[in-house]
């Protein structure tokens, strides 16, 4: 169990605000920090790793206190057993793939490095420098390196946002595998809803200055609605035609179009929407 509470003054586009969070994360789960940008998701992850110090806070991981500002306890970064995967991967440019992973180990164990290289499909690339790798390959090295350190907690800062769909899906499978096989509690910062649905068992929603434990990802959205065909999508485009608007939405990676009356209110690109239909209405054909 991870008990984490913190207060931290932050700056966002809309000005200064104080992030206040009190959450507990069950051990061994793969959970998501979800919310718009500038709501403190990454900062919270960094506070857990010890890379950022909260104004005040308390952090306990599996019974060990990592931070207790009331008692002036603060474990330095390098004494917290975390695996942090940065948004830009942060691989050591002076080391090869293999050396990056070796460097992360406490005691050098070639055999474990070999296993990790195999699991992440990096064997052929092991003697390359990171600058010669693609984004997906770098991401795999970053994950392998984080795991080589044998962390109690895996912290992933939007690890997949810069990758194409195919790579994304395969790394998502690897993440799920890591969580299952090694049972490492994993926190994933993401604003990709479909990713959260696919991977996470629990979502913490960052709403500006507070953080809410939403439970299962399905609870993030309006499940009060009876429609059985529900998707979460993102508005790509909103065009007025006659007295209606045609919304182009992307659901997963499929673009769809929906017509709404112009009186319905405004939709801007980037807005998240729920698309629902009664189970009776769609037509369906076997492919």
């Amino acid at each position, binding site marked *: 169990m991870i008990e984490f509470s913190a207060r931290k003054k932050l700056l966002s586009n809309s000005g200064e605000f104080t992030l206040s969070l009190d959450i507990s994360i069950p051990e061994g789960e793969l959970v998501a920090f979800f919310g718009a940008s500038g709501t403190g998701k990454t900062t919270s992850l960094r506070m857990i790793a010890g890379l950022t110090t909260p104004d005040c806070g308390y952090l306990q991981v599996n019974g060990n206190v990592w931070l207790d500002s009331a008692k002036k306890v603060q474990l330095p970064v390098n004494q917290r057993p975390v695996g942090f995967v940065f948004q830009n991967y942060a691989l050591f440019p002076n080391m090869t793939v293999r050396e990056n992973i070796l460097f992360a180990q406490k005691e050098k164990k070639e055999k474990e490095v070999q296993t990790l290289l195999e699991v992440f499909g990096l064997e052929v690339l092991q003697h390359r420098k990171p600058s010669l790798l693609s984004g997906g390959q770098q991401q795999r090295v970053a994950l392998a390196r984080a795991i080589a350190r044998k962390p109690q907690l895996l912290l992933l800062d939007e690890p997949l946002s810069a990758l194409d769909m195919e790579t994304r899906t395969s790394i998502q499978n690897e993440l799920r595998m890591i969580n299952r096989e090694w049972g490492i509690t994993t926190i994933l910062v993401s604003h990709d809803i479909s990713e959260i649905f696919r991977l996470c068992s629990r979502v913490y929603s960052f709403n500006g200055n507070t953080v809410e434990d939403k439970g299962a990802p399905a609870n993030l959205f309006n*499940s009060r609605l009876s429609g*059985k065909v529900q998707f979460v999508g993102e508005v790509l485009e909103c065009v007025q035609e*006659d007295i209606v608007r045609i919304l182009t939405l992307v659901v997963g990676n499929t673009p769809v179009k929906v017509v709404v009356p112009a009186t319905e209110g405004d939709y801007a690109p980037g807005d998240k929407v729920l698309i629902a239909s*009664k189970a*009776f209405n769609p037509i369906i054909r076997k492919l």
Partner: protein
Amino acid sequence: MNILPATISQLSMNGNLTWVRAAVRDFIFQVIVIGNPENKLYLKDGSSIELLFNEAEVILGKGSGENICIPNQFPCKVLSLAQGTMFTQVFLELAGHTISALLPSDSGESFSFQVGESLQIYLRPNDIFLQAVEKVQS
């Protein structure tokens, strides 16, 4: 989207399908949903819900509609019209609430709806969504 507050007045179940009767004032709407009171906690006699339906699903007619096979038939009054080339949006008063219907302008013209005119609206039971008013875990 049209939203009407309603109260569940009667439920009849058949396996995982439920036939819901919900009252908006004196009008009883009939809705069919997948699910039953065991897995949809808001499906309960007397609980407050909202009825949601798409503008484009609203069928308008003049006259009594006795020989049309749709259970949800209610009288309403035209409040205003928004005229487009392709579509016409008709705003209607139904049981004290405002709803709207989106129909092709051609049929709007041929029916020449007038503000203040009394009409009949028709809604299929499988076009209406239910939405719990207070948050209930599904």
